[in-house]
Structures are given as C-alpha cells and as structure tokens.
C-alpha cells in the first residue's frame, strides 16, 4: 500500500491578520504559517493505516517557510518519505495551481491512496482534495472520519450533519478528504523531531509553471465590520463575573 499524504500550510488564525496595501490580499510580511489542522489528521490517519496493515507513507508539502518542520515532525511520527514541491510561492498560489502541480508529482509516486485534509480555512477556490482527484483521474470522497482498507477498495465513514455517518465503498486508487483521524494526532517530543532532522532525508521536486485557471481574482478583501460585534465587558475576573450574573438574570437564566 503506497500512501501519499498531502499537507498545506495556512495562516495561523491566532495571529492578527491584515489586508495589504492592494486591498485584495492578505498582508504576508509578518504572517506565521502552520500546518492545516485537517492535514495533521490526514498525516495521523496515514500512519495509523501503515501501523495496522503495512505500507509506505510519503508526506508531500509545498516548499514554503515552515514546511521543513512539518515534514520532520511527520517523519518523527512514522512517515517514511518526505517530499517538497519547490517553486515560487511568493505572490500566492491558488489551490487549482497547487493541485495541478502536486498531481504530476503524485503520478510519479504511483499512489494507491492519497490522503489530505478535507478543507483548509483559506480554500478560496475549493478544497485541494477533489481537485487533486480529478487531475489524477481518481475517485474522491471527503469528510472521512475513519476507514479500513480491503484489497482494491476502502470502506470509509463519511460524516453528515447531526452525527449521521454514511459508510461508503471507494475503489482504489482514490483521494480521501480527512475530517478527523481515528485517534487524535499523536504528540511527538521535540527530541524525536530533532533526531528526524539528523536522519530523515528531505527530497525536493520542482513544480512546473503555475496554472492558476479555475480561481478568480479578488475584487476587494476586508476585515468583517464591527457592526455585529459582542459588547466586551471590561475589567478583571471579579468585575466581569458581576456583570455576567446581571446579564444572566436579565436573560432569565438565573
């Protein structure tokens, strides 16, 4: 079983995000990027599958700042092969372009199963999984939380609203969009990551020229207006608690 996990880096939402001078894009000068958390689940799911029934796990990431750490962390967790897609990411690359480039790399890897996060918070031209699937000519199923592999197919649990689950059969090769891994993504000690940095090999493959068609230009980007914002209660824990008790009384809860 040849498993390829595709990970993407996204702006860390804990940091303040601002719009740049053009008014149509994020200001990237101070932007901190972290692994898309659904992709973290996809890595975990790939490693769980390998531990259960063998195979090889390759983790593939675009070569942007922070990618090395993410790949070495994946190696410390049990990934076998680390691969970066290198290219000019400076002026922003949309998911259509990224998926086209990644699909040429994945074709060479002869993947049986491609796992990636079901979505990322900056998917403005659609999530990457189904784009990859179509460019690869593979089947796609998203919102997967749990799967088992048989001969030439997987049985996947797809999540619906309200806790309903659809059990679906998917013929291999296929791309699955992971909503949650069967177990929470494992913790690895920094020492193990450091060890991986010494021993694991980072391979790199150059992306062909970006083909961004399929995305549309942004006319204006802005921070949502403050019109519908919460009334922030000032003061310390004591002051806030006093006011909240009043509010709870007004709301008829107390």
């Amino acid at each position, binding site marked *: 079983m040849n498993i390829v996990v595709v990970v993407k880096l996204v702006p860390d*939402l*804990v940091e*303040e*995000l601002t719009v740049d001078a053009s008014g149509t894009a994020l200001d990237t000068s101070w932007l901190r990027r972290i692994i898309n*958390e659904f992709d973290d689940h996809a890595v975990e799911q790939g490693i769980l599958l390998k531990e259960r029934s063998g195979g090889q796990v390759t983790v593939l990431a675009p070569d942007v700042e922070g990618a090395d750490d993410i790949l070495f962390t994946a190696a410390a967790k049990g990934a076998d092969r680390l691969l970066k897609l290198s290219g000019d990411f400076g002026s922003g690359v949309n998911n*259509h372009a990224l*998926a086209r480039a990644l699909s040429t790399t994945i074709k060479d890897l002869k993947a049986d199963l491609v796992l990636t996060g079901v*979505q990322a*918070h*900056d998917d*403005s*031209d*659609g999530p*990457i999984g*189904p784009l990859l699937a*179509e460019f690869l000519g593979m089947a*796609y*199923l*998203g*919102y997967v939380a749990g799967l088992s592999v048989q001969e030439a197919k997987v049985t996947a649990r797809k*999540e619906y*609203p*309200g*806790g*309903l*689950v*659809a*059990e679906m059969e998917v*013929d291999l090769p296929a791309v699955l*969009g992971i*909503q*949650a891994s069967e177990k*929470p993504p494992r913790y690895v000690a920094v020492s193990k990551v450091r060890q991986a940095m010494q021993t694991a090999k980072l391979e790199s493959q150059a992306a062909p020229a970006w083909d961004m*068609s399929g995305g*549309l*230009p942004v*006319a*204006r*980007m802005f*921070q*949502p207006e403050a019109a*519908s*914002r*919460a*009334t*922030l*209660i000032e*003061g310390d*824990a004591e002051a*806030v*608690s*006093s006011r*909240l*008790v009043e*509010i*709870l009384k007004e*709301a*008829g*809860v*107390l």
Partner: protein
Amino acid sequence: MSQDVYVAIEHVQGQVADISYVMLRAARELATRAGGGVVAILMGHQASGLAEAMAADRVIYFDHPALKEFTPEAYQRVLAGLIHDDSPRALLLGNTTIGSDVASVLSARLGIPLVSSCRTVSPDGKLVVQTCGGKIMAEVELAATTTLVTVIPGGYSPEEGKGAKAPEVVTRQAPALEGLRVRLSKYIEPEAGDVDISKESVLVAVGRGIQQEGNLELAEELAKALGGTVCASRPVVDQGWLPVSRLVGKSGKRVNPKLYLALGISGAPEHVEALTDSETIIAVNTDPAAPIFSVAKYGSTVDLFELVPVLTERIRGAKTS
C-alpha cells in the same frame, strides 16, 4: 450562455437540507441582477415531492435509482452534463459534506472557475466570501463563463428560500450512472448520547482554549451551577475528551438554547453555523479578534481559567441569595 442561476439541491434520507433554501435565496439575488431565473436542480429517486417548498422559477428533476441518496460521482456526472448542455450563469452548491465533494471536481473537469464559501451577494452583485475562519472577507465577481459557487450558511435564513406555491417541475433524463467508484453501503445513525444537547436550554461550550482534559471540570462545575450541560467544538471531541453526542457544529448538533456560553472557542465557521439560533451567546476568549465575538452578544477577553472559578462562585451565590 443562459442568465439563469442553478442551485444543486441537497437532501439526505428524504429531507431537504436547509442549505438548499439558503442557496435558493442567494441565487435570487444573483438571478435578479443577471436578468435570469432561479432553477433548482433536484437529483433523486421518486423524490419530486421534495421540490414543493422551493422558491424557484422551475425545478429540473433527474430521477434515477442511483440518485436516491447522495454519492459524489453520480452527482458529478449529472451536473457536468447539465452545465455542458445549459451553460447557466452560475451553479450554486453547498459548502457542505455533499457540495464540497462535487464542486472542485466539476471545476477541474469542465475548466470553469470555482468560488468557495460565499455567504451573501453584495448590493452590486458580487459574491461576498468568507476566508481565514471568518476573520477576513472578500468580494469576487462572477466570471464570463458559468461560475461554480459554494455557499455557507449564515447569510440568509432558510425561510427566505421557501415559496408559497410549488414550482413547476421539469423531468430530464439522467445520464448513464453505471460503474460508480464511490458507493453508499449504509447509513449509521448517531448513537443516542447521555443528553440531547439540541434540547438543552443552557449550554456551556468548551473549545481548544480549555487546553487539557483535566480542565473540563471547570466547565462542568459552571454548567452545574447554571443547571446546564457541557458541550464542545471539534478539537475537544477529536481529542476524545467528550463524546461526539456533545459536538456542536457542522457534523455535530445544531443547538438553540436560551444561553450559549462559549469558553475558549475561536468561532470557526463550522462551529458557529450550528449555534446561531441561540437566544443569548456569551463568549470568553483571550483573542479579541476571535470570530466568536461577531456572533456573541456579550464577551470577555479575561482568561477563562481566571474567570470561570469566580463566575461559578458568583452564580452559586446568586442562586442561594
């Protein structure tokens, strides 16, 4: 190209999903400006009755046994053929467990653009989309070709997409649907939890900010003082700290309590969409820019670990006095 705006209706187990009506409402905004009509696309089997409440100028209905319940490839084939034949101004799909499996594939297959996470249509006809977990919004114009748009809830109410009289239903022949590589085996109904959070009137919700399992006790104590129940956003359930029956969000429960008290929840769109029917939302988060504050009525940026013990004591005091 036609100026009509098409909407891919979503239904599961004989129930039309609310997002379908939200999309019909959004489609009306686009169609009015384009000078076209709103057309609902219903794919099902012996399901034409599902169209009754739709506020659409007409319904195109594809009936096939393979369309009884959603599977990605059947929907992709029907919609790809339809766009090829009709070239509508736009096709709207849900940014949901159904629509997201289809939209990107259609975009790649047909070479037409896709705009994701549209919330509303601006007065001048642009798509207003949400990105970065709701911290940033953007405006995008429809392309010259058919544009695919995925729609998130929150911009319009489902009621606005319902009509007084049933629309005209036109049946069309479905394409060949053999050899599908993704097949539905069965549905697994959710296990009944210890409590049904969709019926609780006071909910204390915890998110990533609770940091570790042991800290849940703080929320439990507060909930107990309020006579309520603890629920959670996705990261807490993914860690296995609370069962999925306590999950509020896109793949969990929708809730409508009198009080929703969110502790350490950032307010990702997948969470927020399920709690907007709450009467009073109070949010506690140290990040003043957290999107949860745009749905909450009241908020505090005091650290929840400082606030919650004091608040719990005050509430106990208020109840005994």
